[in-house]
C-alpha cells in the first residue's frame, strides 16, 4: 500500500487543477484517473474563461468566477514557467451577441440583475448597440442587434491547459495513476484508502473531482454531488487567418486559427452522440452572427457531457462525517481552473474550506427538499 499526502480522484480539468494546486502547496498527492476512453468533459469544452453569464441569483458564484478569472493570468504564467507549455490565455473582454431586439432586451435585463445582485462587490458591464459591436467584431450579420460586454472575459486553449496541469503536477512531485476506477474505498476521518484492482493507496486527505462519477462516489465519503450530464456540441472550422480579436459566447477563434462554434444544451443522459439537427442550429446562429462564417468548412465537431449540478452552480463541500474528504463539481472547469489551483487547493491543503464557500455546499439542496 502506498501513502500519499492527498488523493485526487479524477484527472480532468477540475481534478488536475486541484492536484496541481496541491503540489504547488507543497503536498505530494496521487491523481487517480480513468483510461483513454472515458466521458472526459475536459476534452470537450469550448475554452472560454467566462464571467459575464455566471451566477444569476447566486452572487457568490459570480464572485468566485471573478476571482478565478483574476487568478488566471498568474496561473497561465506559472504554468508556462514550470512546464514550458503556453496555454494561450487571452483576456480581451468578451461579448454575448444578441440577435433581434427581444434577445437584446432580455440580455440587458439579466445584466442589470447581475449588477444589482453584486452589491458592493460590483459588476461592470456595457450594453453595446449594433454599431458599437461592429467596431469590435468584423462583419456582423444584419440580425445582430447588439451585445453585452464585460472586460472580465477571456479564452484559452483548454487542451493545452490540461496538458500543462498534468505536466506541472508530475514535475512538482505528484504521482499520476491512470487506468483506474475506484473498486474499493476505505473511509474514516483523515484516513482514506482507495483500491483499484490489487492496488491500494492511502492518504489523510481526498478530493473527489471525478465529474459525473462523483454522483456515485460522494455518498461513500459522507458527501453529496447530485450532478447530471448535459450534452453540449461544438463545431470547429478549418484554420483561418486571425479575424476575431474577441471571444463571444458562441463563436471564438483559437490561436491556431480554427473558429469554434457552440453552444448547445441537450438533456439526453449519458449519450455522447452528435445530432445533425443541433449542429445545424448552431451553424445557423453562427452564420447569422457572422455571415462570412458560412463559407468556412467545419473540419471537426464533437459532443461531450457537461457535469451539471441541479442549479448550475458549483458544488464544493467538505465532509462532516469524514473530515479530510472534499469534493468539487462544476461545468466550468476551464473558467474555474484559476480558482481551483490557486484558491481551492490551498484550502484543501490547510484542511478546511473557507467559509466563503459555504453557499456552494450541497446542503443547499436539502433546504429545498425540506421546504
Amino acid at each position, binding site marked *: 500500500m502506498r501513502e500519499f499526502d492527498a488523493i485526487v480522484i479524477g*484527472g480532468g480539468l477540475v481534478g488536475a487543477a486541484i492536484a496541481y494546486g496541491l503540489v504547488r502547496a507543497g503536498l505530494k498527492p496521487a491523481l487517480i*484517473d480513468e*483510461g*483513454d*476512453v472515458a466521458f472526459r468533459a*475536459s*476534452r470537450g469544452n469550448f475554452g472560454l474563461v467566462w464571467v459575464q453569464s455566471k451566477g444569476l441569483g447566486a452572487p457568490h458564484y459570480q464572485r468566485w468566477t471573478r476571482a478565478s478569472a483574476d487568478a488566471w493570468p498568474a496561473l497561465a504564467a506559472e504554468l508556462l514557467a514550470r512546464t514550458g507549455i503556453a496555454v494561450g490565455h487571452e483576456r480581451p473582454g468578451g461579448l454575448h451577441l444578441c440577435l433581434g431586439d427581444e434577445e437584446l432586451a432580455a440580455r440587458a435585463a439579466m445584466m442589470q440583475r447581475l449588477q444589482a445582485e453584486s452589491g458592493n462587490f460590483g459588476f461592470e458591464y456595457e450594453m453595446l448597440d449594433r454599431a458599437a459591436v461592429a467596431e469590435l467584431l468584423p462583419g456582423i450579420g444584419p440580425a445582430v442587434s447588439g451585445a453585452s460586454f464585460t472586460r472580465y472575459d477571456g479564452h484559452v486553449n483548454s*487542451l493545452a491547459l*490540461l*496538458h500543462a496541469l*498534468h*505536466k506541472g503536477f*508530475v514535475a512538482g512531485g505528484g504521482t*499520476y495513476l*491512470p*487506468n483506474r476506477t475506484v473498486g474499493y474505498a476505505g473511509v474514516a476521518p483523515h484516513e482514506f484508502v482507495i483500491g483499484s484492482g490489487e492496488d491500494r493507496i492511502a492518504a489523510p486527505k481526498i478530493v473527489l473531482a471525478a465529474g459525473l462519477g462523483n454522483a456515485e462516489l460522494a455518498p461513500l465519503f459522507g458527501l453529496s454531488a447530485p450532478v447530471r450530464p448535459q450534452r453540449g456540441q461544438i*463545431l470547429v*472550422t*478549418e484554420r483561418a487567418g486571425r479575424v476575431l480579436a474577441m471571444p463571444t459566447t458562441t463563436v471564438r477563434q483559437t490561436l491556431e486559427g480554427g473558429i469554434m*462554434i457552440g453552444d448547445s444544451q441537450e438533456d439526453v443522459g449519458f449519450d455522447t*452522440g*452528435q*445530432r*445533425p*439537427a443541433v*449542429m*445545424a*442550429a*448552431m*451553424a*445557423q446562429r*453562427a*452564420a447569422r452572427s457572422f455571415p462570412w*462564417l*458560412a*463559407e*468556412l*468548412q*467545419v*473540419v*471537426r*465537431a*464533437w*459532443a461531450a457531457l457537461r457535469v451539471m449540478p441541479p442549479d448550475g452552480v458549483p458544488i464544493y463541500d467538505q465532509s462532516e462525517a469524514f473530515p479530510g474528504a472534499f469534493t468539487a463539481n462544476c461545468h466550468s472547469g476551464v473558467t474555474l481552473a484559476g480558482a481551483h489551483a490557486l484558491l481551492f487547493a490551498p484550502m484543501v491543503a490547510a484542511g478546511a474550506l473557507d467559509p466563503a464557500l459555504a453557499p456552494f455546499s450541497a446542503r443547499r439542496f436539502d433546504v429545498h427538499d425540506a421546504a
Partner: protein
Amino acid sequence: MTAELAVVGAGPAGMAAAVLAAELGLAVTVLDEQDLPGGQIYRAVERAAPDSPLGEDYLAGRDLVAAFRASGAAYLPGAAVWHIDPDGTVSFGRDGRGGALRARHILLAAGALERPVPIPGWTLPGVMTAGAAQILLKSADLVPEGRTVLAGQGPLLYLVAAQLAAAGAPPAALLDTAPAGNRRAAARLAGAALAGWRSLARGLRLLAAPGLAGIPLRRGVRGLRAVGRGRVEAVAWDGGELACDLLLLHEGVIPDTQIGRALQLAHAWDAAQWCWRPVLDEWGGTSLANVSVAGDGGGIAGAAAAVLSGRLAALAAAHRLGRIDAAERDRRAAPIRAALARERAFRPFLEALTRPPPSVLAPPQDDVIVCRCEEVTAGMIRRAARLGAQGPNQAKAFTRCGMGPCQGRLCGPVVAALMAETLGRPIAEIGAYRPRAPYKPVTVAMLAELAG
C-alpha cells in the same frame, strides 16, 4: 430520401452488394465520394482503353461496373457521407448541398487505405504512395517524369512497377523492405496457401511481368529515408542512396475504419494483418444490428473477396428486411462462402510474406512526423505517453495529433504503435481514436441550411 439498403462505397464490395440486393428486390441507394464507380481498385475503369497498361485484372472490373449501372440501384456519385446516425439516417454533402437518406440497413463498403509509411522526409513534396501513382495512371493516363523509385513491399508495389513499365515509364529502382524473417514465416504457411492457387498464380504472373525484368531491385532494405530540401531529391537507406524525382512508398493496405469507429462498432486488432478491423459475423454483421461491413473495410482480402463478401452482406440484408427467408439466404450463400474460403486461403501466406518492418509501425526516430496534419512527431507522442496518456485520445488532447483535417486516418496506427511501445503494452490494448462527424468537411452554410 429513403432506401431499404444504403451502401457507402461503390468499389467491388459495394457494387456487388448493390447488384444482388437490387436483384432480390431491395430499394438500394449507393453513395460514393468519387465521380465514377469502381472504388480505388477499379477506379475510372469505364474510361480505360482495351490495351490499358494497367492489365487484365483491372479491366475485369468493367463487367462489374456495367452490372452495377444496370442494376436499378440508385447511385449518388460525388456524395461525401459526413454523419451516420444509429437510427439509419445517412447525412451527406453533394455539390455543396446537404442531403439525408433514411435507410433500414446500412452497408459500409469504404474499402482500404495504404498503411502510412512514416520514414524521415515522408512529408516532402514528391513522396507519394504507390497507389497514388496508380490512380494517376487509371484516372488520367498520367505517368511520372524523371527518376521514380518505388520502396516498400507487397503485391501492389510490384504491380505498380509493372504497370508503370508497361506505360512507358519504368521506375529507376525498386527497394524491397521486407524483413529477412518474412520469407521463413511465410514458407511455413505455403501449404495452406495452395487452396488459393489462383491468387498465387496471379502473383507469380505479376512477378514475372516483362517490364519488371529491367528494373534494379534491392532486397532487405532498411533505414529508408527521403532526402531533399523543399522536395524529395534522393532516397537513402542503410548502405545506399539514389537520386530521385519521385518516391513512391507502399507497405500494404489496411481497412478504412473511420466510419465504423465513429459509429463505435466493436473492433479487434488483427495480429496477422497488423491493423484494426471491425468485428464481423459471417454475414459482415457488426455490433449494430442495422450496420454491416463488406470488402477490404472488414479486413484485407482483395477485390475478388470483396465482391463475395458484398454478396453475402446483400443476402443478409435481404433476409433481415424480409425479402428472402433464411433457407434461401443460406442456399444462395453456400457457393459464395466456398469461393470466399478459397480467396482467403492465400492471405496468411501473403500477410506473413509482407509483414511490415517494426520501423514502419513505430518509427524509431523521434523527429519523424507521424501526424502529418498537425505536424506532431514521434517524440512528442512518446513524451505524451510518458506523461501519462494511456491511448490515442489522450495523446490527441496533449499533442493535437489526430485533430487535423484527416481526423487521424493516417496517423492512428502509428500513434497507437508508438504508445504501445512506450507504455510496454500490446497495441490491442492501446485502442484507437474515436473519430466524430463530420467524417468529411462540410461548410457552415451547408449545415446551416439543414436548419431550414
